[in-house]
């Protein structure tokens, strides 16, 4: 029988496989803040924009929600993470800005500097 340590390692490997199966290795990973504070600032609508884009054929993107990172007055926040590049953190994102992020950053690799949290 497996020891708990052996068992957890197996479970971890399975978990990682499941995450990869969901597209974690896509070129870009997008995280939308979805804690109470983020939702109050309007992140549900932002999430909808990304979620609809993925459902309607936006490929090579791994979309996930996340908890609160702690930057209250810049919420809702969205991160676009790409291997080998500095993770881009956007603040005060609206559905309109989300659409622009999809068009410019996700599809064309163009970081929209004016919304980046410094």
């Amino acid at each position, binding site marked *: *029988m*497996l*020891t*708990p*340590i052996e*068992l*957890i390692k197996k*479970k*971890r490997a399975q*978990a*990682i496989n*499941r*995450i990869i199966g969901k597209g974690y290795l896509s070129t870009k990973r997008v*995280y939308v*803040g979805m*804690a*109470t*504070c983020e*939702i109050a600032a309007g992140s549900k609508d932002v999430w909808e924009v990304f979620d609809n884009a993925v459902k309607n054929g936006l490929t090579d993107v791994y979309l*996930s*929600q*996340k*908890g*609160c*990172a*702690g*930057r*209250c*007055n810049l919420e809702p926040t969205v*991160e676009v*993470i790409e291997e*080998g*590049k*500095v*993770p*881009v*953190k956007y603040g005060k994102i609206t559905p309109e800005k989300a659409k622009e992020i999809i068009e410019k950053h996700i599809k*064309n*690799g*163009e*970081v*929209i*500097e*004016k919304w980046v*949290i*410094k």
Partner: protein
Amino acid sequence: MSVKGKRNEKFIITLCDGTTCMNKKSKDIEIRLKEEIKSRGLEDKVQFNISGCLGMCEKGPILIVNPGFTMYGRVGLNDLQEIIESHLCKGNPVARLVIDEDHLYNRFFRVFGDVAFFGNQMRIALRNCGIIDPENIDDYLALRGYEALAKILTEISPNDVVEKIKKSGLRGRGGAGFPTGLKWELTRKAEGKEKYVICNADEGDPGAFMDRSAIEGDPHTVLEGMIIGGYAIGASKGLVYIRAEYPLAIKRLKKAIEDSRREGFLGQNILGSNFSFDIEIKLGAGAFVCGEETALIHSIEGSRGMPRPRPPFPSVSGLFASPTLINNVETWANIPVIILDTPEWFSSIGTERSKGTKVFALAGKVVNTGLVEVPMGTTLREIIYDIGGGIPDGKKFKAVQTGGPSGGCLPEKFLDTKIDYESLAKAGSIMGSGGMIVIDEDSCMVNIAKFFLEFTQNESCGKCTPCREGTKRMLEILERITVGKGQEGDIEKLERLGKMIKKASLCGLGQSAPNPVLSTIANFREEYEGHIRDKKCKAGECKELLTYSINDKCVGCTACKRVCPVNAITGSPKERHVIDETKCIKCGQCFDVCKFKAIDKK
């Protein structure tokens, strides 16, 4: 304008500036590095950041190059040239200096470290908040989730788990700072057929949201901590006491418990071991006093949420008179890290008597409001200015309020106070659960004290007289001071009452309720005196103490006269107007409407 691709060529260098790294000459490295970058004309290509302690002191000074998160350790002045030439110019990291660290903490840093607000923090309890999907157990598992649990079940006896927690130096994060390991030991040694583990998530301080964010961002770490606690003390049942007004936190906690059960981390024979443990959620109605452990226990038992005298402490006789281990959300979130990253490592962070980090909810008059987790020993100034970005609109700092309604207000002279349980108490405040409100010159300290006392007075359960009656009397005095009816001797009365309430109250609520008043009297006595003797509020917040008058900048435009709801302003067009103080209700509309700065508000 952003140029396509430009950002990708930029390197971000982060240099650790924790105390240990500083002793190891990180300052010299900073100076040399900046010189080298400048002399080679790399300023556009390299951004330079300073971070707070990264917790790898043994291998310091630490230097991180992003993108790629290349971590260099034991960096010396002689290594800089090679790092610049090979890594920054040619893109080849210097292999001999790279250190490979797989700690639980500061994973957050990989995503957020280049932003000063986050880079100066050290995330242990909140290590996963903001970087994982809290509703997906796979995300937690991928970051070594439940490995600490598996480790103790495989190779560490319950007694040794307690020893590890003791060794770590962890103290209760709910506010009082009782040594966690000692609490565990007492509960473990207490006799009882059944024992209970409770997570106190009854966060009630105005403006505090640490526990909510922790649960919403990473619920599994709290559960894992609790299961480890259950194993250590020999309990089979755990409860999370959380207020019903946190619906999202409750939803995520429920999902986490279900997922955890399905994966075999909760329930019978956890991970194939002999240990069985389960957790359920108890909803609180949101009474502040239920954050007090004995009141919380009464509330779970179905009684009215009221405290009782201690001893016996819950560790001996708690829920249903059984030995009960109660810790706060943040305390539980630290447990898996202590097990996996070792107690020795944990105790290397912080000050002599306060170890690890503390989470604060930074709010009020500060540029960057938000959640902040910093090593103990960080100064208030570092939190407010380096992380918080200082006071907005060029206003002056006046005080910082820590510990919520149980804490105190500290003026500028205490800004260099190091955050730990003892230093804050010595300065006249408390650590508390982590509320931190910055106050600028526009706020009246008497009014602030009144606000907090109003809160505790409302929340007083009424069981003991000092708290029930005493806070009411104190509030009455404060109310009359703020409306200009204060009397000589009121300050002394407040002090006497405050000291009495602190000494004679039954529970922590009453024992700490006078703190905001006593600390503002101690540090801002002249403001109280101004209200009482001169009937003046320096900050201009106490409406009844203001007088409005019209100065000679008045051009007689009649705007104020037209807006005044009680016809207190007289004067002919193009002549200076006059306010009749006896009629004025101090609504301030004339002040707002005047375009010539002709109305004085004093």
